[in-house]
């Protein structure tokens, strides 16, 4: 538990999201495998998912999300960014950091540290926590934290209906008049729970199916959220929004209800039904969608989850600067709706090299 309500307060200077333009409809994946589309759509509450272009990967997604975050932080001189952390579980290199490429693409090289965080879907929020701590300690002026993934699944695996590509990035520094929001506190839990894994050298991950729900996703998110609310002496009605990790559309709604939140509090931050699961970028993209529409003074509870397993909860309060900054870069709903190109299963499989041609 970290109570962050003491000086210096830590704020978000800019946030940004990126997702590829390609989409595949759940119907088309279901048809390819002989599944009933309505059963899948209603069961997972997912309608379509993003598909990376043939020239995209976790690094390119991270760079674009970071550029959008920088657009919303025009007052930040990129040279003041002292740390770059990327959370991901789909790095293009098994050995070689992605953060170096992202930093170079942004023109950051001297006086910058960086690393790739890996904790299934929770690597991005680990980066946020690390940057909060370094800013608070005065070690860096600003830091860049990114959660980005181009997620993989076995052809025909149920994960194929949700695993998608996208990510979110945050410029974090000491709270000032240019901060769109600030952190009130964070609370983390973790346990050795093998619900989802990929062995070294194996192309696609394996999971325990239904097991991923109860002892993993729900237990960890509930413990992290309740731990944070206890420590900050807050209750569900003190929050305008709850944004849990979104492996599908159903789980975040169910976990919010279990915690005592209303559907109106979870809907504004839902993205997975129209994008699929961005893994490390999932809850963080949901946070950006909530920020796109939030009013100053509103409070957001974000809870990331990583299989294996652990969860990070954050309480975030929106500030006045959101009003003048939200239009400086594409909003999540614009990225979802404005330009999309549908592909059929054959093209989808080829884009992912699932079928070797």
């Amino acid at each position: 538990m970290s109570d962050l309500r003491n000086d210096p307060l830590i704020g978000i200077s800019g946030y940004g999201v990126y997702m590829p333009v390609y989409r595949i409809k759940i119907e088309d994946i279901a048809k390819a495998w002989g599944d009933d589309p309505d059963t899948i759509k209603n069961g997972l509450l997912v309608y379509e998912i993003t598909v990376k272009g043939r020239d995209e990967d976790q690094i390119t997604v991270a760079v674009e999300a970071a550029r959008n975050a920088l657009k919303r932080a025009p007052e930040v001189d990129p040279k003041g960014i002292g740390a770059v952390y990327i959370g991901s579980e789909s790095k293009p290199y098994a050995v070689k950091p992605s953060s170096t490429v992202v930093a170079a693409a942004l023109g950051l090289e001297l006086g910058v540290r960086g690393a790739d965080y890996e904790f299934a879907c929770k690597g991005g929020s680990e980066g946020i926590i690390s940057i909060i701590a370094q800013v608070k300690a005065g070690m860096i002026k600003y830091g860049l934290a990114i959660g980005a993934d181009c997620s993989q699944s076995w052809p025909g695996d149920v994960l194929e209906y949700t695993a998608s590509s996208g990510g979110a990035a945050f410029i974090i520094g000491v709270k000032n008049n240019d901060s769109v929001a600030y952190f009130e506190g964070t609370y983390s839990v973790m346990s050795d729970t093998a619900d989802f894994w990929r062995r070294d050298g194996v192309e696609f991950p394996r999971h325990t199916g239904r097991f991923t729900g109860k002892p993993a996703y729900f237990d960890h998110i509930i413990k992290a959220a309740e731990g944070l609310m206890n420590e900050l002496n807050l209750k569900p009605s003190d929050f305008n929004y709850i944004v849990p990790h979104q492996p599908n559309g159903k789980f975040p709604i169910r976990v919010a209800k279990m915690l005592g939140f209303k559907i109106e509090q979870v809907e504004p931050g839902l993205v997975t039904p129209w994008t699929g699961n961005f893994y490390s970028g999932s809850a963080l993209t949901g946070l950006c969608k909530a920020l796109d529409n939030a009013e100053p003074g509103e409070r957001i509870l974000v809870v990331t989850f990583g299989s294996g397993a652990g969860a990070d909860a954050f309480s975030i309060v929106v500030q006045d600067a959101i009003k003048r900054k939200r239009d400086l870069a594409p909003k999540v709903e614009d990225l979802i709706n404005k330009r999309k190109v549908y592909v059929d299963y054959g093209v989808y499989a080829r884009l992912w090299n699932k079928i070797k041609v």
Partner: protein
Amino acid sequence: MSSPRSPRIWQLKDIRYRLLGVECNKCNKRFLGKRLVCPSCGSRDLKIVELSRTGKIYSYTVVHTPPRGRENYGPYIIAIIELDDGARATGEVVDVDPSEVEIGMKVEMVFRRIGEEDRAGIIYYGYKFRPIL
């Protein structure tokens, strides 16, 4: 083990990653890439700048017979982009069907994979362009 080509890429990196170019202090024109002499007025008084990341399509061609390694991907678009600061860059235009591309279309720089050494080699990244959202 093949000898890595990464040292050469390192030198091109600033141009490919960030659209780095030069601005002539005499005639104020901008050009992509590292140069010693202004191609327009011949001045050697140049400064390094990051070029505009938005612009419009000046001319383009659809490549129907792709080179080796991308035979399966169908036609793609190569265009000369006139950037908002007047510099020109040649690159691929992505995320759009060739039938929708037209001269004057507004585009923005996007960071993408531009190739790879081989399956086990270095991945090359750099600028491409796509229609502005």
